[in-house]
Protein backbone atom coordinates (compact mmCIF):
# COMPACT_ATOMS: atom_id res chain seq x y z
CA UNK A 1 0.00 0.00 0.00
CA UNK A 2 2.46 2.61 -1.11
CA UNK A 3 2.75 5.24 -3.76
CA UNK A 4 5.87 5.53 -5.93
CA UNK A 5 6.43 8.20 -8.53
CA UNK A 6 9.61 7.79 -10.56
CA UNK A 7 11.03 10.16 -13.16
CA UNK A 8 7.67 11.77 -13.97
CA UNK A 9 7.69 14.22 -16.86
CA UNK A 10 4.54 16.05 -17.84
CA UNK A 11 3.99 18.97 -20.16
CA UNK A 12 0.96 20.78 -21.54
CA UNK A 13 1.78 22.06 -25.01
CA UNK A 14 5.10 23.90 -24.88
CA UNK A 15 4.93 24.27 -21.07
CA UNK A 16 6.83 21.60 -19.16
CA UNK A 17 5.36 21.19 -15.65
CA UNK A 18 7.08 18.11 -14.21
CA UNK A 19 10.70 17.37 -15.11
CA UNK A 20 11.69 14.07 -13.57
CA UNK A 21 9.74 14.08 -10.33
CA UNK A 22 10.59 11.29 -7.86
CA UNK A 23 8.51 10.74 -4.73
CA UNK A 24 7.66 7.76 -2.51
CA UNK A 25 4.91 7.58 0.08
CA UNK A 26 5.22 4.53 2.31
CA UNK A 27 2.28 2.57 3.70
CA UNK A 28 0.48 4.39 6.50
CA UNK A 29 2.61 7.48 6.02
CA UNK A 30 1.47 11.08 5.59
CA UNK A 31 3.63 13.09 3.20
CA UNK A 32 3.05 16.76 2.48
CA UNK A 33 4.05 18.11 -0.91
CA UNK A 34 4.83 21.80 -0.72
CA UNK A 35 5.87 24.25 -3.39
CA UNK A 36 5.01 27.45 -5.21
CA UNK A 37 1.71 27.99 -6.97
CA UNK A 38 1.90 26.52 -10.44
CA UNK A 39 4.79 24.21 -9.50
CA UNK A 40 2.79 21.12 -10.50
CA UNK A 41 1.54 19.84 -7.16
CA UNK A 42 -2.05 19.24 -8.28
CA UNK A 43 -0.75 17.74 -11.53
CA UNK A 44 1.29 15.29 -9.43
CA UNK A 45 -1.79 14.30 -7.44
CA UNK A 46 -3.82 13.76 -10.61
CA UNK A 47 -1.18 11.34 -11.89
CA UNK A 48 -1.62 9.18 -8.80
CA UNK A 49 -5.41 9.02 -9.28
CA UNK A 50 -4.94 8.23 -12.98
CA UNK A 51 -6.65 11.46 -14.06
CA UNK A 52 -3.50 12.41 -15.97
CA UNK A 53 -0.97 10.14 -17.61
CA UNK A 54 2.75 10.97 -17.52
CA UNK A 55 4.66 11.75 -20.71
CA UNK A 56 7.55 9.80 -19.20
CA UNK A 57 8.15 7.94 -15.93
CA UNK A 58 6.17 5.50 -13.81
CA UNK A 59 3.38 5.87 -11.27
CA UNK A 60 2.98 2.82 -9.03
CA UNK A 61 0.17 2.54 -6.49
CA UNK A 62 -0.14 -0.57 -4.36
CA UNK A 63 2.34 -2.34 -6.63
CA UNK A 64 0.33 -1.61 -9.77
CA UNK A 65 1.52 0.68 -12.52
CA UNK A 66 -1.34 3.17 -12.93
CA UNK A 67 -0.91 4.12 -16.63
CA UNK A 68 -0.98 0.43 -17.59
CA UNK A 69 -4.21 -0.43 -15.75
CA UNK A 70 -7.36 -1.26 -17.71
CA UNK A 71 -10.37 1.01 -17.10
CA UNK A 72 -11.91 -1.63 -14.82
CA UNK A 73 -8.71 -2.04 -12.80
CA UNK A 74 -8.32 1.74 -12.59
CA UNK A 75 -11.84 2.11 -11.19
CA UNK A 76 -11.19 -0.66 -8.66
CA UNK A 77 -8.05 1.17 -7.54
CA UNK A 78 -9.94 4.46 -7.29
CA UNK A 79 -12.45 2.93 -4.88
CA UNK A 80 -9.50 2.53 -2.50
CA UNK A 81 -8.61 6.18 -2.95
CA UNK A 82 -10.24 9.35 -1.64
CA UNK A 83 -9.54 12.63 -3.39
CA UNK A 84 -10.13 15.99 -1.73
CA UNK A 85 -10.33 18.65 -4.43
CA UNK A 86 -8.93 22.14 -4.03
CA UNK A 87 -12.34 23.76 -4.60
CA UNK A 88 -14.36 20.82 -3.23
CA UNK A 89 -15.84 19.85 -6.65
CA UNK A 90 -19.22 19.08 -5.07
CA UNK A 91 -22.01 18.12 -7.47
CA UNK A 92 -24.18 21.25 -7.63
CA UNK A 93 -27.41 19.46 -8.42
CA UNK A 94 -27.23 17.13 -5.40
CA UNK A 95 -27.66 17.65 -1.68
CA UNK A 96 -24.60 17.32 0.54
CA UNK A 97 -25.92 13.95 1.74
CA UNK A 98 -26.18 12.65 -1.83
CA UNK A 99 -22.71 14.00 -2.58
CA UNK A 100 -21.25 12.07 0.33
CA UNK A 101 -23.24 8.96 -0.63
CA UNK A 102 -21.82 8.85 -4.19
CA UNK A 103 -18.69 6.89 -3.33
CA UNK A 104 -20.53 4.65 -0.87
CA UNK A 105 -23.15 3.70 -3.46
CA UNK A 106 -20.52 2.99 -6.09
CA UNK A 107 -18.46 0.85 -3.73
CA UNK A 108 -21.58 -1.11 -2.76
CA UNK A 109 -22.07 -3.64 0.04
CA UNK A 110 -24.03 -1.29 2.32
CA UNK A 111 -27.74 -1.03 3.05
CA UNK A 112 -29.48 2.34 2.69
CA UNK A 113 -29.62 2.64 6.51
CA UNK A 114 -25.87 2.00 6.77
CA UNK A 115 -25.25 4.57 4.03
CA UNK A 116 -27.30 7.20 5.86
CA UNK A 117 -25.46 6.43 9.12
CA UNK A 118 -22.09 6.72 7.37
CA UNK A 119 -23.11 10.05 5.78
CA UNK A 120 -24.07 11.42 9.19
CA UNK A 121 -20.84 10.13 10.74
CA UNK A 122 -18.64 11.54 7.95
CA UNK A 123 -20.31 14.94 8.10
CA UNK A 124 -19.99 14.88 11.89
CA UNK A 125 -16.24 14.27 11.59
CA UNK A 126 -15.84 17.52 9.67
CA UNK A 127 -18.23 19.51 11.86
CA UNK A 128 -21.17 19.56 9.44
CA UNK A 129 -23.78 17.69 11.50
CA UNK A 130 -27.26 18.03 10.05
CA UNK A 131 -26.12 19.36 6.65
CA UNK A 132 -27.40 16.33 4.71
CA UNK A 133 -30.33 18.12 3.05
CA UNK A 134 -28.49 21.32 2.15
CA UNK A 135 -27.36 22.11 -1.38
CA UNK A 136 -23.73 23.08 -2.09
CA UNK A 137 -24.91 26.56 -3.12
CA UNK A 138 -26.20 27.11 0.42
CA UNK A 139 -22.77 26.51 1.97
CA UNK A 140 -19.85 28.87 2.54
CA UNK A 141 -16.49 28.18 0.89
CA UNK A 142 -15.08 26.58 4.04
CA UNK A 143 -18.16 24.43 4.56
CA UNK A 144 -18.02 23.25 0.96
CA UNK A 145 -14.41 22.29 1.47
CA UNK A 146 -15.28 20.29 4.56
CA UNK A 147 -18.16 18.60 2.73
CA UNK A 148 -15.67 17.61 0.02
CA UNK A 149 -13.47 16.11 2.69
CA UNK A 150 -16.42 14.21 4.18
CA UNK A 151 -17.18 12.80 0.72
CA UNK A 152 -13.59 11.60 0.32
CA UNK A 153 -13.36 9.86 3.71
CA UNK A 154 -16.91 8.41 3.72
CA UNK A 155 -16.04 5.18 1.91
CA UNK A 156 -12.98 4.50 4.05
CA UNK A 157 -10.30 4.61 1.37
CA UNK A 158 -6.80 3.21 1.93
CA UNK A 159 -5.29 6.26 0.26
CA UNK A 160 -6.24 9.88 0.70
CA UNK A 161 -5.06 12.55 -1.68
CA UNK A 162 -5.64 16.06 -0.35
CA UNK A 163 -5.35 19.05 -2.67
CA UNK A 164 -4.92 22.02 -0.35
CA UNK A 165 -7.42 20.85 2.27
CA UNK A 166 -6.98 23.88 4.53
CA UNK A 167 -6.49 26.78 2.12
CA UNK A 168 -9.04 29.52 2.72
CA UNK A 169 -10.20 28.11 6.05
CA UNK A 170 -10.18 29.95 9.38
CA UNK A 171 -7.51 28.88 11.93
CA UNK A 172 -9.91 26.84 14.05
CA UNK A 173 -11.33 24.90 11.10
CA UNK A 174 -7.79 24.42 9.80
CA UNK A 175 -6.88 22.84 13.14
CA UNK A 176 -10.00 20.60 12.96
CA UNK A 177 -9.02 19.41 9.47
CA UNK A 178 -5.40 18.84 10.54
CA UNK A 179 -6.57 16.70 13.45
CA UNK A 180 -8.89 14.79 11.15
CA UNK A 181 -6.01 14.01 8.77
CA UNK A 182 -3.94 12.76 11.70
CA UNK A 183 -6.88 10.70 13.03
CA UNK A 184 -7.51 9.11 9.61
CA UNK A 185 -3.93 7.90 9.71
CA UNK A 186 -3.96 6.74 13.34
CA UNK A 187 -7.41 5.11 13.34
CA UNK A 188 -7.55 3.67 9.86
CA UNK A 189 -3.90 3.52 8.80
CA UNK A 190 -4.59 5.63 5.72
CA UNK A 191 -1.69 6.49 3.42
CA UNK A 192 -1.92 10.19 2.60
CA UNK A 193 -0.36 12.69 0.27
CA UNK A 194 -1.26 16.26 1.18
CA UNK A 195 -0.67 19.26 -1.04
CA UNK A 196 -0.42 22.41 0.99
CA UNK A 197 1.04 25.89 1.18
CA UNK A 198 0.43 26.04 4.90
CA UNK A 199 3.74 25.11 6.57
CA UNK A 200 2.16 25.07 10.05
CA UNK A 201 -0.26 22.39 8.87
CA UNK A 202 2.49 20.55 7.03
CA UNK A 203 4.64 20.37 10.20
CA UNK A 204 1.66 19.23 12.27
CA UNK A 205 0.34 16.43 10.08
CA UNK A 206 3.33 15.10 8.15
CA UNK A 207 5.70 12.22 8.68
CA UNK A 208 7.73 13.68 5.84
CA UNK A 209 7.61 16.85 3.78
CA UNK A 210 8.70 17.08 0.14
CA UNK A 211 9.46 20.34 -1.65
CA UNK A 212 8.60 20.58 -5.34
CA UNK A 213 10.56 23.15 -7.34
CA UNK A 214 10.85 23.53 -11.11
CA UNK A 215 9.24 20.17 -11.77
CA UNK A 216 11.38 18.12 -9.38
CA UNK A 217 11.38 17.22 -5.71
CA UNK A 218 14.41 19.13 -4.42
CA UNK A 219 14.22 18.03 -0.78
CA UNK A 220 12.43 15.38 1.27
CA UNK A 221 12.69 15.04 5.02
CA UNK A 222 10.94 14.86 8.34
CA UNK A 223 9.46 18.13 9.61
CA UNK A 224 12.55 18.60 11.82
CA UNK A 225 14.89 18.00 8.88
CA UNK A 226 13.00 20.49 6.76
CA UNK A 227 13.11 23.07 9.55
CA UNK A 228 16.90 22.77 9.79
CA UNK A 229 17.67 22.26 6.10
CA UNK A 230 20.63 23.97 4.47
CA UNK A 231 18.90 24.00 1.05
CA UNK A 232 18.33 27.69 0.45
CA UNK A 233 15.38 27.19 -1.90
CA UNK A 234 13.57 25.16 0.77
CA UNK A 235 14.53 27.58 3.52
CA UNK A 236 13.47 30.53 1.44
CA UNK A 237 10.07 28.92 0.82
CA UNK A 238 9.54 27.77 4.40
CA UNK A 239 10.61 31.07 5.91
CA UNK A 240 8.89 33.14 3.23
CA UNK A 241 12.10 34.84 2.00
CA UNK A 242 11.98 35.34 -1.77
CA UNK A 243 15.44 36.99 -1.88
CA UNK A 244 17.04 33.76 -0.60
CA UNK A 245 15.38 31.80 -3.42
CA UNK A 246 16.42 34.39 -6.01
CA UNK A 247 20.04 34.17 -4.81
CA UNK A 248 19.99 30.37 -4.96
CA UNK A 249 18.47 30.47 -8.45
CA UNK A 250 21.03 33.02 -9.65
CA UNK A 251 23.87 30.86 -8.31
CA UNK A 252 22.45 27.77 -9.96
CA UNK A 253 22.10 29.64 -13.26
CA UNK A 254 25.72 30.84 -13.03
CA UNK A 255 26.95 27.31 -12.32
CA UNK A 256 24.96 25.99 -15.27
CA UNK A 257 26.41 28.73 -17.49
CA UNK A 258 29.97 27.89 -16.44
CA UNK A 259 29.34 24.19 -16.92
CA UNK A 260 28.06 24.73 -20.45
CA UNK A 261 30.83 27.19 -21.30
CA UNK A 262 33.61 24.79 -20.24
CA UNK A 263 33.13 22.18 -23.00
CA UNK A 264 32.80 24.92 -25.60
CA UNK A 265 36.19 26.33 -24.52
CA UNK A 266 37.69 22.89 -24.70
CA UNK A 267 36.36 22.44 -28.23
CA UNK A 268 37.88 25.77 -29.24
CA UNK A 269 41.25 24.76 -27.76
CA UNK A 270 41.48 22.36 -30.63
CA UNK A 271 42.62 18.82 -31.21
CA UNK A 272 44.19 15.83 -29.45
CA UNK A 273 44.11 15.20 -25.77
CA UNK A 274 42.17 18.40 -24.95
CA UNK A 275 39.20 17.37 -27.04
CA UNK A 276 39.24 13.99 -25.32
CA UNK A 277 38.60 15.63 -21.95
CA UNK A 278 35.44 17.42 -23.04
CA UNK A 279 32.93 14.68 -22.21
CA UNK A 280 34.33 14.41 -18.69
CA UNK A 281 33.92 18.16 -18.15
CA UNK A 282 30.40 18.11 -19.55
CA UNK A 283 29.46 15.38 -17.10
CA UNK A 284 30.94 17.36 -14.27
Amino acid at each position, binding site marked *: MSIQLTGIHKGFGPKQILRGLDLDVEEGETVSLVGFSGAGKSVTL*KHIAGLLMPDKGTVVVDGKEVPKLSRKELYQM*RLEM*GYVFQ*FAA*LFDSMTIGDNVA*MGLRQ*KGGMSEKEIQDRIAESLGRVGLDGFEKRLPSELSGGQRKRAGLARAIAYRPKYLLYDEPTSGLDPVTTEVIDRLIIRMKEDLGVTSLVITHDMKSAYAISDRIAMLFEGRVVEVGTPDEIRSTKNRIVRGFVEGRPEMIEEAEAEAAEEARLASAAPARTQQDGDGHHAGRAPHRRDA
Partner: protein
Amino acid sequence: MNWTLPLTVVGAAVLGLLSAFGRFSRFVADCGRALADLRTWPGLTVMQMRKLGVNSLPIALFLSAFTGIVLALQASYTFTGAIPMYFVGALVGKTMILELGPVLTGLALSGRIGANIAAELGTMRVSEQIDALETMAYNPVSYLVVPRVLAGTLMVPVIVIFANVIGIICGWFTALQMLEMSTSQFIRGLRLFYDPFDITYSVLKSCSFGFVITIVGCYQGFNTQGGAEGVGVATTRAVVIASVLILVLDAFWAATLLQQ
Protein backbone atom coordinates in the same frame (compact mmCIF):
# COMPACT_ATOMS: atom_id res chain seq x y z
CA MET B 1 6.30 35.42 -52.06
CA ASN B 2 6.57 31.94 -50.60
CA TRP B 3 4.60 29.75 -53.01
CA THR B 4 4.18 26.95 -50.43
CA LEU B 5 2.24 29.20 -48.04
CA PRO B 6 -1.26 28.49 -49.47
CA LEU B 7 -0.50 24.77 -49.39
CA THR B 8 0.62 25.02 -45.77
CA VAL B 9 -2.54 26.88 -44.77
CA VAL B 10 -4.82 24.42 -46.58
CA GLY B 11 -2.88 21.46 -45.18
CA ALA B 12 -3.11 22.77 -41.63
CA ALA B 13 -6.85 23.39 -41.99
CA VAL B 14 -7.45 19.89 -43.37
CA LEU B 15 -5.37 18.30 -40.61
CA GLY B 16 -7.22 20.33 -37.97
CA LEU B 17 -10.57 19.27 -39.40
CA LEU B 18 -9.55 15.62 -39.57
CA SER B 19 -8.21 15.59 -36.02
CA ALA B 20 -11.41 17.27 -34.73
CA PHE B 21 -13.45 14.66 -36.56
CA GLY B 22 -11.25 11.92 -35.07
CA ARG B 23 -11.71 13.26 -31.52
CA PHE B 24 -15.47 13.50 -32.00
CA SER B 25 -15.63 9.98 -33.44
CA ARG B 26 -13.72 8.65 -30.45
CA PHE B 27 -16.17 10.40 -28.14
CA VAL B 28 -19.12 8.78 -29.95
CA ALA B 29 -17.35 5.40 -29.71
CA ASP B 30 -16.87 5.96 -25.96
CA CYS B 31 -20.62 6.55 -25.67
CA GLY B 32 -21.25 3.28 -27.49
CA ARG B 33 -18.96 1.40 -25.11
CA ALA B 34 -20.55 3.08 -22.07
CA LEU B 35 -23.91 1.52 -23.01
CA ALA B 36 -22.58 -1.68 -21.43
CA ASP B 37 -22.55 0.06 -18.03
CA LEU B 38 -26.16 -0.87 -17.28
CA ARG B 39 -25.76 -0.12 -13.57
CA THR B 40 -25.38 3.58 -14.20
CA TRP B 41 -27.36 5.05 -17.09
CA PRO B 42 -30.93 3.59 -17.14
CA GLY B 43 -32.24 5.41 -14.06
CA LEU B 44 -30.53 8.65 -15.02
CA THR B 45 -31.96 8.44 -18.56
CA VAL B 46 -35.54 8.49 -17.24
CA MET B 47 -34.68 11.58 -15.19
CA GLN B 48 -33.15 13.29 -18.23
CA MET B 49 -36.15 12.38 -20.40
CA ARG B 50 -38.35 14.25 -17.98
CA LYS B 51 -35.95 17.17 -17.76
CA LEU B 52 -35.22 17.51 -21.50
CA GLY B 53 -38.62 16.44 -22.77
CA VAL B 54 -41.28 17.87 -20.50
CA ASN B 55 -39.48 21.12 -19.88
CA SER B 56 -38.92 21.72 -23.59
CA LEU B 57 -42.55 21.24 -24.58
CA PRO B 58 -43.79 24.82 -23.99
CA ILE B 59 -41.27 26.49 -26.32
CA ALA B 60 -41.81 23.85 -29.04
CA LEU B 61 -45.60 24.13 -28.84
CA PHE B 62 -45.50 27.94 -28.85
CA LEU B 63 -43.34 27.89 -31.96
CA SER B 64 -45.47 25.35 -33.83
CA ALA B 65 -48.74 27.09 -32.93
CA PHE B 66 -47.66 30.30 -34.64
CA THR B 67 -46.11 28.38 -37.53
CA GLY B 68 -49.47 26.66 -38.12
CA ILE B 69 -51.31 29.99 -38.15
CA VAL B 70 -48.85 31.61 -40.56
CA LEU B 71 -48.83 28.57 -42.85
CA ALA B 72 -52.62 28.64 -43.21
CA LEU B 73 -52.66 32.37 -43.93
CA GLN B 74 -49.80 32.23 -46.44
CA ALA B 75 -51.36 29.24 -48.22
CA SER B 76 -54.65 31.08 -48.55
CA TYR B 77 -52.84 34.19 -49.84
CA THR B 78 -50.96 32.12 -52.44
CA PHE B 79 -53.93 29.99 -53.57
CA THR B 80 -56.57 32.72 -53.85
CA GLY B 81 -58.37 32.54 -57.18
CA ALA B 82 -56.12 29.81 -58.61
CA ILE B 83 -56.24 26.73 -56.41
CA PRO B 84 -59.23 25.40 -54.41
CA MET B 85 -59.07 26.57 -50.78
CA TYR B 86 -59.12 23.05 -49.31
CA PHE B 87 -55.50 22.79 -50.45
CA VAL B 88 -54.73 24.96 -47.42
CA GLY B 89 -55.22 21.84 -45.27
CA ALA B 90 -52.86 19.86 -47.51
CA LEU B 91 -50.15 22.48 -47.32
CA VAL B 92 -50.41 22.99 -43.58
CA GLY B 93 -50.35 19.25 -42.83
CA LYS B 94 -47.65 18.28 -45.27
CA THR B 95 -45.33 21.20 -44.42
CA MET B 96 -45.73 20.83 -40.67
CA ILE B 97 -45.11 17.07 -40.63
CA LEU B 98 -42.35 16.88 -43.22
CA GLU B 99 -40.39 20.04 -42.63
CA LEU B 100 -41.33 22.80 -40.24
CA GLY B 101 -42.36 20.66 -37.26
CA PRO B 102 -39.04 18.76 -37.04
CA VAL B 103 -36.68 21.51 -38.27
CA LEU B 104 -38.06 24.48 -36.33
CA THR B 105 -38.39 22.37 -33.19
CA GLY B 106 -34.88 21.02 -33.73
CA LEU B 107 -33.40 24.50 -34.12
CA ALA B 108 -35.27 25.79 -31.07
CA LEU B 109 -34.15 22.80 -28.99
CA SER B 110 -30.55 23.16 -30.10
CA GLY B 111 -30.72 26.53 -28.32
CA ARG B 112 -32.56 25.22 -25.32
CA ILE B 113 -31.24 21.68 -24.76
CA GLY B 114 -27.87 21.89 -26.53
CA ALA B 115 -26.86 25.11 -24.79
CA ASN B 116 -28.10 23.81 -21.44
CA ILE B 117 -26.10 20.57 -21.72
CA ALA B 118 -22.92 22.31 -22.91
CA ALA B 119 -23.10 24.91 -20.13
CA GLU B 120 -23.87 22.31 -17.43
CA LEU B 121 -21.15 19.85 -18.44
CA GLY B 122 -18.72 22.67 -19.20
CA THR B 123 -19.17 24.05 -15.70
CA MET B 124 -18.73 20.54 -14.29
CA ARG B 125 -15.51 20.19 -16.27
CA VAL B 126 -13.94 23.49 -15.18
CA SER B 127 -14.99 23.02 -11.53
CA GLU B 128 -13.45 19.51 -11.50
CA GLN B 129 -16.81 17.79 -10.90
CA ILE B 130 -16.15 15.42 -13.82
CA ASP B 131 -12.75 14.57 -12.29
CA ALA B 132 -14.54 14.00 -8.96
CA LEU B 133 -16.84 11.49 -10.66
CA GLU B 134 -13.78 9.72 -12.07
CA THR B 135 -12.09 9.54 -8.66
CA MET B 136 -15.19 7.82 -7.25
CA ALA B 137 -14.98 5.20 -10.00
CA TYR B 138 -17.94 6.48 -12.04
CA ASN B 139 -17.50 6.48 -15.78
CA PRO B 140 -18.48 10.09 -16.61
CA VAL B 141 -19.56 9.10 -20.10
CA SER B 142 -22.09 6.57 -18.84
CA TYR B 143 -23.11 8.84 -15.98
CA LEU B 144 -23.45 12.14 -17.85
CA VAL B 145 -23.39 11.62 -21.61
CA VAL B 146 -25.34 8.43 -22.32
CA PRO B 147 -28.47 9.47 -20.34
CA ARG B 148 -28.58 12.86 -22.08
CA VAL B 149 -28.02 11.49 -25.58
CA LEU B 150 -30.59 8.73 -25.15
CA ALA B 151 -33.09 11.12 -23.59
CA GLY B 152 -32.62 13.60 -26.45
CA THR B 153 -32.86 10.94 -29.16
CA LEU B 154 -36.05 9.51 -27.64
CA MET B 155 -37.77 12.70 -26.50
CA VAL B 156 -37.21 15.10 -29.43
CA PRO B 157 -39.47 12.95 -31.71
CA VAL B 158 -42.17 13.00 -29.02
CA ILE B 159 -41.94 16.79 -28.80
CA VAL B 160 -42.03 17.03 -32.61
CA ILE B 161 -45.19 14.90 -32.76
CA PHE B 162 -46.84 17.24 -30.26
CA ALA B 163 -45.56 20.23 -32.25
CA ASN B 164 -46.97 18.79 -35.50
CA VAL B 165 -50.38 18.21 -33.91
CA ILE B 166 -50.53 21.69 -32.37
CA GLY B 167 -49.35 23.32 -35.62
CA ILE B 168 -52.06 21.56 -37.64
CA ILE B 169 -54.74 22.35 -35.04
CA CYS B 170 -53.77 26.03 -35.10
CA GLY B 171 -53.78 25.99 -38.92
CA TRP B 172 -57.27 24.44 -38.88
CA PHE B 173 -58.49 26.97 -36.32
CA THR B 174 -57.12 29.82 -38.44
CA ALA B 175 -58.80 28.38 -41.54
CA LEU B 176 -62.14 28.28 -39.71
CA GLN B 177 -61.91 31.72 -38.15
CA MET B 178 -60.10 33.81 -40.73
CA LEU B 179 -60.35 32.07 -44.10
CA GLU B 180 -64.06 31.19 -44.00
CA MET B 181 -63.28 27.52 -44.61
CA SER B 182 -65.23 24.62 -43.07
CA THR B 183 -63.75 21.78 -41.04
CA SER B 184 -64.64 19.27 -43.75
CA GLN B 185 -62.81 21.37 -46.36
CA PHE B 186 -59.70 21.56 -44.20
CA ILE B 187 -59.73 17.83 -43.43
CA ARG B 188 -60.30 17.01 -47.10
CA GLY B 189 -57.12 18.91 -47.93
CA LEU B 190 -55.29 17.32 -45.02
CA ARG B 191 -56.09 13.82 -46.27
CA LEU B 192 -55.48 14.60 -49.93
CA PHE B 193 -51.72 13.97 -50.02
CA TYR B 194 -51.38 12.23 -46.67
CA ASP B 195 -49.04 9.24 -46.63
CA PRO B 196 -48.34 7.25 -43.42
CA PHE B 197 -44.66 7.35 -44.38
CA ASP B 198 -44.75 11.08 -43.63
CA ILE B 199 -45.02 10.32 -39.90
CA THR B 200 -42.16 7.80 -40.09
CA TYR B 201 -40.05 10.36 -41.95
CA SER B 202 -40.83 13.07 -39.39
CA VAL B 203 -40.00 10.80 -36.43
CA LEU B 204 -36.81 9.47 -38.01
CA LYS B 205 -35.62 12.97 -38.79
CA SER B 206 -36.44 14.13 -35.27
CA CYS B 207 -34.50 11.22 -33.74
CA SER B 208 -31.42 12.23 -35.71
CA PHE B 209 -31.88 15.88 -34.64
CA GLY B 210 -32.23 14.84 -30.99
CA PHE B 211 -29.06 12.76 -31.22
CA VAL B 212 -27.09 15.56 -32.86
CA ILE B 213 -28.25 18.25 -30.41
CA THR B 214 -27.33 16.21 -27.33
CA ILE B 215 -24.10 14.58 -28.52
CA VAL B 216 -22.71 17.92 -29.74
CA GLY B 217 -23.73 19.60 -26.46
CA CYS B 218 -22.08 16.83 -24.43
CA TYR B 219 -18.91 16.85 -26.56
CA GLN B 220 -18.51 20.61 -26.28
CA GLY B 221 -19.21 20.54 -22.54
CA PHE B 222 -16.77 17.69 -21.93
CA ASN B 223 -14.00 19.48 -23.80
CA THR B 224 -14.45 22.86 -22.16
CA GLN B 225 -11.21 24.58 -21.18
CA GLY B 226 -10.60 27.57 -18.97
CA GLY B 227 -13.21 29.21 -16.76
CA ALA B 228 -16.42 31.10 -17.44
CA GLU B 229 -15.18 32.22 -20.86
CA GLY B 230 -14.53 28.61 -21.84
CA VAL B 231 -18.05 27.66 -20.82
CA GLY B 232 -19.42 30.50 -22.95
CA VAL B 233 -17.38 29.38 -25.96
CA ALA B 234 -18.50 25.76 -25.53
CA THR B 235 -22.16 26.79 -25.27
CA THR B 236 -22.03 28.95 -28.39
CA ARG B 237 -20.24 26.24 -30.34
CA ALA B 238 -22.78 23.63 -29.24
CA VAL B 239 -25.69 25.71 -30.57
CA VAL B 240 -24.00 26.75 -33.82
CA ILE B 241 -22.65 23.29 -34.70
CA ALA B 242 -25.92 21.54 -33.82
CA SER B 243 -27.94 24.05 -35.88
CA VAL B 244 -25.68 23.59 -38.90
CA LEU B 245 -25.81 19.79 -38.57
CA ILE B 246 -29.62 19.88 -38.29
CA LEU B 247 -29.85 21.71 -41.61
CA VAL B 248 -27.33 19.36 -43.24
CA LEU B 249 -29.20 16.31 -41.93
CA ASP B 250 -32.48 17.82 -43.12
CA ALA B 251 -31.13 17.99 -46.66
CA PHE B 252 -29.61 14.51 -46.32
CA TRP B 253 -32.90 12.89 -45.28
CA ALA B 254 -34.80 14.70 -48.03
CA ALA B 255 -32.28 13.56 -50.63
CA THR B 256 -32.26 9.95 -49.45
CA LEU B 257 -35.84 9.29 -48.32
CA LEU B 258 -38.04 11.62 -50.38
CA GLN B 259 -36.70 10.71 -53.81
CA GLN B 260 -39.30 8.85 -55.87
